[in-house]
């Protein structure tokens, strides 16, 4: 068991590997991985992620450097050079580590995270928001706009049929001007969008990677979320909660238009 030479080599190999891993994580971590940003609150989320990346990267780097140094330095010792830390020193090191982590972790949550979380989830949409009702079903997004009267028609599950996927009650007059669409959502740039998320069957998840929006649609509940797109263009909509064998192809599109284009599209849609 006592082949010292092979241990010295093993110690050095391990130390080099650990150092390489540390540097590799930092190098690969510093590249830009996040999809391009296209919403206001997304900036806050990106700051949170970047802060955590930087802080975690720093801690990973120091951890691996120290670990590699220990392996290199003490790998070749045949007599121990330090035996038992006093309880005081153990407690000191623990407290130091806890303080650093508390500042990074809890500090990050309270200082950077909570304001964004409160704005995104815990606040109601501003009155100027364009309301869109998205009803998920197994493997499609039913989109509905309130139309000029600003009110959504009543829906009841009993009326659902092939040509009436949302079960809109035809007798309800506010339903007559509702505009229904499939898998494509049209919104106006720099104008808040309030999404009323519902589901007909299983749990899906309304995920806009570029706009940093994700909210599960829970059957039996109508969940409101709002965001402000601040870049025009088409962005992809994906489902982020396992919903059956079509989960991977439930692709939708969010088209962010200028107000004029949106009005033109609305007119075209109403009498088209």
């Amino acid at each position: 068991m006592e082949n010292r030479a092979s241990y010295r080599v093993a110690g050095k190999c391990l130390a080099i590997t650990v150092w390489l891993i540390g540097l590799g994580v930092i190098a690969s971590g510093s590249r830009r991985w996040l999809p391009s940003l296209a919403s206001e609150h997304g900036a806050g989320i990106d700051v949170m992620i970047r802060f955590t990346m930087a802080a975690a990267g720093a801690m990973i780097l120091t951890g691996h450097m120290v670990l590699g140094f220990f392996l290199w330095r003490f790998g070749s010792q045949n007599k121990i050079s330090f035996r038992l830390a006093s309880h005081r020193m153990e407690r000191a090191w623990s407290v130091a580590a806890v303080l650093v982590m508390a500042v990074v972790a809890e500090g990050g949550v309270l200082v950077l995270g909570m304001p964004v979380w409160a704005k995104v989830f815990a606040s109601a949409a501003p009155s100027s928001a364009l309301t869109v009702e998205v009803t998920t079903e197994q493997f499609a997004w039913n989109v509905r706009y309130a139309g000029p009267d600003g009110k959504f028609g009543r829906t009841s599950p009993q009326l659902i049929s092939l040509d009436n996927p949302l079960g809109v009650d035809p007798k309800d007059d506010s339903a007559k001007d509702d505009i229904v669409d499939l898998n494509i959502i049209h919104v106006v740039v720099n104008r808040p969008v309030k999404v009323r998320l519902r589901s007909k069957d299983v749990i899906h998840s309304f995920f806009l990677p570029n706009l940093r929006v994700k909210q599960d649609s829970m059957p039996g509940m109508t969940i409101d979320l709002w965001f402000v797109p601040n870049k025009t263009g088409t962005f992809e909509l994906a489902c982020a909660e396992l919903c059956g064998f079509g989960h991977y192809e439930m692709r939708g599109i969010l088209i962010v238009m200028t107000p004029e284009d949106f009005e033109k599209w609305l007119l075209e849609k109403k009498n088209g």
Partner: protein
Amino acid sequence: MTTYKIYWATWGVLLLITLGMIAAGGALTGKLLLVSLLLAMGVKAALIGGTFMHLRSEQLSLILIVTLGLLLVGAILFAGIAADAVRVLRLSGDGG
């Protein structure tokens, strides 16, 4: 029979509390009823655990394990999910 008296005394008290709880159903209402019923339930549970199961004569650490293990974990579970039950009710149907 003398050593068993403690059990039959507890038995008597338990019955009185039970009858009291049912009577309270008619007399009190609302929050007061809820609190008094929960209190009576706690007393009955303590009586059964304490005397019938001899928990009183065990070491404190065992008493803590049993009571805390059961009550604390159950309370944490209920406290964590209760807020969502109200939210589900509020957001059910066309809500929002």
